[in-house]
């Protein structure tokens, strides 16, 4: 699904990701772990070219998405195929209905029947249909944080992406919401390929098929979750797993 070759990302001329090589297959959950500020959050952003506004970023290397070089795909089209959700729910201050249909209206779908159908599918996928079906025109301020984050996911799913990037999606949730959101991520694996940055290495162990460990901008080790946690090949990875590096 995704093939990353020699990916380097510079922030204000300083490299924060160095020569990352990775292959991600369809319907896999790949968790990215590592200490804060070591490049794990910038990696998914390099895939869909959505960087923070604070500095100038430069990307080098090749990223292939379904065999196509992403540099040759228009940014707008790429972002519709590779969706992303963030650590904080960033819904628009509009109604629930308008939020979910935003992406569809963006690509020119205005047929109410189609929009309604897609809304139902998306909300059912994220487990919100029962709660929200009668209040679709209500403002988003009525929703809890977990519901808002699920709605962000529904908004992304409405565009039927193939890959979903998640940047610490459970960071703003409490522990019970966290575990139910993790279940949701695991459930979505059947239909989508997911790359998730996690704030807690144990979470990576719970939800992922593969784990990539980032340290000082380098992908130190990448492999099956079970192997990484039980038999790490690199000394640095072992130090991270055992808590000597945090």
């Amino acid at each position, binding site marked *: 699904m995704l093939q990353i070759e020699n990916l380097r990302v510079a922030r204000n001329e300083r490299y924060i990701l160095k020569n990352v090589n990775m292959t991600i297959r369809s319907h896999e959950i790949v968790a990215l772990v590592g200490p804060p500020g070591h490049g794990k959050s910038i990696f998914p952003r390099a895939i869909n070219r959505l960087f923070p506004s604070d500095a100038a970023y430069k990307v080098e290397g090749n990223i292939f998405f379904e065999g196509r070089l992403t540099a040759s795909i228009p940014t*707008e089209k790429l972002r519709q195929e590779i969706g992303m959700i963030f650590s904080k729910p960033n819904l628009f201050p509009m109604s629930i209905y308008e939020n979910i249909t935003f992406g569809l209206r*963006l690509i020119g779908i205005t047929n109410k029947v189609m929009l309604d159908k897609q809304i139902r599918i998306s909300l059912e996928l994220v487990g919100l249909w029962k709660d929200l079906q009668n209040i679709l025109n209500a403002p988003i301020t009525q929703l809890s944080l977990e519901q808002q984050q699920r709605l962000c996911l529904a908004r992304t799913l409405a565009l039927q992406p193939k890959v979903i990037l998640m940047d610490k999606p459970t960071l703003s949730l409490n522990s019970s919401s966290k575990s139910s959101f993790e279940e949701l991520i695991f459930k979505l694996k059947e239909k989508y390929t997911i790359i998730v940055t996690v704030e807690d290495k144990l979470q990576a162990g719970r939800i992922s098929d593969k784990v990539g460990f980032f340290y000082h901008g380098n992908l130190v080790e990448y492999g099956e979750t079970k192997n990484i946690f039980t038999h790490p090949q690199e000394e640095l990875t072992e130090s991270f797993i055992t808590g000597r590096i945090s």
Partner: protein
Amino acid sequence: MSGFLLILLIGVNLAIFIGGILAITFSEFSSLRFINRSRSVIELFTNVPYVVYGYLLLLMFNEFIDLTSGFNNLIVSGLVLGGMMLPTISNKFIRVFQSVPYDQREGAYSMGATPYKTALMVLVPSQRKLFISSIIVTIVRTFCEILIVLLVAGFIIDKIAVIISIFMVAIIGTWTSQLLKKSHYKSEAL
């Protein structure tokens, strides 16, 4: 009076259209450093009285003024009025755009929206009360300045009525815009 309202309508629409494009281009495409550096220049332009721009534009469009053609004069007056409002309205629009947190833009960009589409489909609807409030304040200021100039130039004879109307427009306009601002921030806080 209807002629004046028509001129105001042309001017306001023109200022909103060009000011909107300028504000979107300035706030969505420029870097933060560039915006911060040029902020003082824009403030300087904003603080120049509107009549100065009006006079300059009038000189520019001088040759198009034809006293025998009402339509020609209407368009020229509308253009001049629009030009008078442009610096203030674009400055206010830029401020409104910049008051929106980057999170919201990021949400739209992550679904493939371009900066222009983000501005029109997300930022404008979500901040519409602030936009309307900016437009009201600009119209009020323009209206008051025009009347004062006409009064000083001696085109208006009933001075007391004009002064009272200026105060009324200024008070009602400012009050409405403040009300809109307050209700916007209240709904944001909910």
